[in-house]
């Protein structure tokens, strides 16, 4: 990707960490708990370790082609036609990812807070925010992410801490949930939910190169693993596994049970704030990446004239699911369980191809 502004470690970390952690506010905890039961927290850690392994391979690829972003590497290794084809595939994936994220956000918002507001209004509002942020560019999105990171992580910690009286850690037993084998398999598949880490390889030229890439990648993945695991554990400890498997948004439900006294209760408004902030940043980032990938495929230098058409395209995809069941049982599963076939497998195949074809390496490396 062409250089789109320049920002440091904290901005990059905030951007990627928010995009990764955003899912904890959605239906992810419910799905993980319904699949893994009391070992949901363990399965999440397995997903985190799997993602770290994939990230290690991605790091080797990026190190082999220092100074180049993922799309440039695709072209370098596989040739222009296939490379651009892969870039276009990523563009479509991130468009789909954006649309389904928006739709999932809308479904939960309607269930919990805005039952009478039309879906179209919520979808278009969120996409309009994404388009406005994409208009400003990647640096703008990163700096907004940095500002929002404080209320988002602060609010998350506040909810987890304030709900402490309802936790009973005995509810995390039996320790292996629906079975250790099941936990490992699902944990491996759920590493797809860490797929946003690929964005780091796409924006590498805006983040001070490989060192920041490695630092942000490892730290953001570890943070996501710990936060997701902790949130699953807290939800289980508060509601037990049968009830937690039912709650559309376990974190929202957790914020609803906070009751310390007549004066300290009903603080779910905090949840809504941080949730909307996190969703806006995530949707804007994926929308921007999709748009840029498309521009790169067809050598379009300025992405701004395409904003409106991409906004309409994304909203059209967002309306494909007919109901919540379709969103959860088809689209969310496709993204969070099977997207590793694209976001991890393609770069790894490209790495193997580069090794076989002996492309990249020291000869390609720029001066450190």
């Amino acid at each position, binding site marked *: 990707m062409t250089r789109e502004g320049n920002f440091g470690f904290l901005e990059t970390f905030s951007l990627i960490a928010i995009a990764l952690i955003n899912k904890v506010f959605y239906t992810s905890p419910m799905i993980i708990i319904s699949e893994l*039961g*009391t070992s949901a927290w363990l399965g999440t850690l397995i997903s985190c370790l799997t993602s770290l392994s994939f990230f290690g391979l991605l790091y080797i690829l990026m190190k082999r082609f220092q100074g180049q972003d993922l799309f440039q590497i695709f072209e370098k290794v596989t040739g222009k036609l296939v490379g651009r084809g892969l870039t276009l595939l990523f563009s479509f994936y991130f468009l789909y990812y954006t649309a389904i994220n928006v739709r999932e956000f809308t479904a939960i918002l309607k*269930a*919990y*807070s*805005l*039952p*009478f*507001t*039309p879906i179209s*209004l919520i979808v278009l*509002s969120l996409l309009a925010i994404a388009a406005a942020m994409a208009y400003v560019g990647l640096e703008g999105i990163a700096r907004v992410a940095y500002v929002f990171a404080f209320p988002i992580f602060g609010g998350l910690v506040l909810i987890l801490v304030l709900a402490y009286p*309802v936790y*009973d850690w*005995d*509810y995390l*037993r*039996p*320790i*292996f*949930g*629906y*079975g*250790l084998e099941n936990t490992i398999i699902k944990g491996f598949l759920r590493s797809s939910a860490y797929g946003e880490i690929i964005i780091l390889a796409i924006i590498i030229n805006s983040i001070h190169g490989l060192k920041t890439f490695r630092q942000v990648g490892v730290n953001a993945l570890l943070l996501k693993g710990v936060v997701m695991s902790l949130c699953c554990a807290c939800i289980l400890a508060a*509601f*037990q*596994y*049968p*009830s937690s498997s*039912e709650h559309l948004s376990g974190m929202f*439900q957790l914020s*609803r*049970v906070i*009751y310390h006294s*007549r004066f300290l*209760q*009903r603080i779910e408004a905090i949840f809504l704030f941080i949730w909307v902030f996190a969703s806006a940043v995530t949707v804007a980032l994926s929308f921007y990446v999709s748009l840029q990938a498309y521009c790169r495929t067809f050598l379009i230098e300025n992405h701004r004239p395409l904003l409106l058409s991409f906004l309409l395209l994304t909203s059209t995809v967002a309306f494909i699911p007919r109901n919540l069941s379709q969103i959860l049982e088809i689209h969310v599963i496709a993204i969070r369980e099977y997207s590793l076939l694209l976001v991890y497998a393609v770069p790894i195949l490209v790495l193997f191809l580069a090794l076989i074809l002996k492309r990249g390496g020291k000869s390609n490396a720029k001066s450190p």
Partner: protein
Amino acid sequence: MQKVHRFFFAFLIAMFFSLSLSGCYDSTEIDEEVYALAVGVDKGVSNIIRVTIQYATYKDGGGGQKSGGGGNGESAGGGKEEESGEVDGTVVATVEAPSLLEAINMLNLSSNRQISLFHTKMLVFSEDYAREGVMRYVEPLARYRQVRDSMRVVVCQGTAEEFIKKGSDYVGANMSKGMELSFYQSQNTGYFPDVFFHDFYASVLSPYGQSTAIYAGVNDFKQLEVPTNRELKLVTDLDMKPGQIPRKGGSKSEFFGTAVFDGDKMVGYLLQNETRFYLIATGKFQWGTFTFKDPQSPNYAFLLEITNSRKPEVEFRFEEGVPVIDLKIGLEAELVSSQSRINYEDLDRIAELETEVEKYFCDGIKRTIDKTQQEWNSDIFFFGKKAAAQFRTIQEMESYNWLQHYHQAEVNVDVDVKIRRSGFLFKAMPIQSTSAGQKGRE
């Protein structure tokens, strides 16, 4: 010129987005809604369910104007208020319908504002209904966005409609505050558990244990016996159902005891002392005063204020296939009265007294656990949480089915009581008088 265009463009965008600040489809003014404080569920006559809702009338600030005189639903306003269902600054409206949520929808017709459940404090089931199973009424509430998880779950003797009507708050002007504070009496007395809706719902689905609810009833104030010249007798182990407390004055509705469930069906209840033992055994007991017969002077009593000194420790194991549970409880006590003026705080007496009190609690807790095992096979103590640690997977645990095996468990109870203080007095002095055998003389 360029700058002017930019400014106007930015201004127009800001104006456009400011429209959303006024709220959109879901905006509701506070005074467009009335907030249900209590929801009662009874058996219907012409349809399956009869739902009663109590909401504040807002006639006096936030809490609603109390009707003069009467109280307990018998307001001085007479017929008009009785017809409109006005009770102490609230309206109590009842409707029959095919389902709970539709009933609430229909009750909107009783008010010129929309009824909202956002601030509902309690959900009351009549005992008759609770014994048939409550899930079909709890489930829609668990799904419904308006319902608060901090709402309490109550099972009452008689009808929920009557219970709600008779519940009055005589202190302060705010019925909502009064209702919420009434649940805090669980912490101050231990006579009933404080059961939140989310806890109740999760427990109904739980493989670890069974659910409970607050047991309640209406006191007709006819329990106080007429004074006679009979000799006074000290009764310390009172066992009463709700509505049987010998008292008059105050609210007629009272929370007193614990409704015990098996799944979603009520199977029995714990009386007030059993409830205290249950709360102590589960670590939910805050504090309460206990009256004991003085072992050395049986016509007199000594009083202890008891608190849980630490969380109860539960150890679980299987011995030849039989579940064995060791329950260790630590209690802290303060001697708040010794009517006989015998100095139990003496170093050589305090251990003896502690042993006596330990036996009382140990027997009481054991008896209560036995009752839940033998009469209902309902693990309201949630020993199943500890049993779960014996299994590696949920499949293993569910196929064993702890809830079915609870009655087979051998439960060993060990209570450790430490009498720490004796109030403001230490070693009370004897009463001086001309009669023989003054209190405190040894």
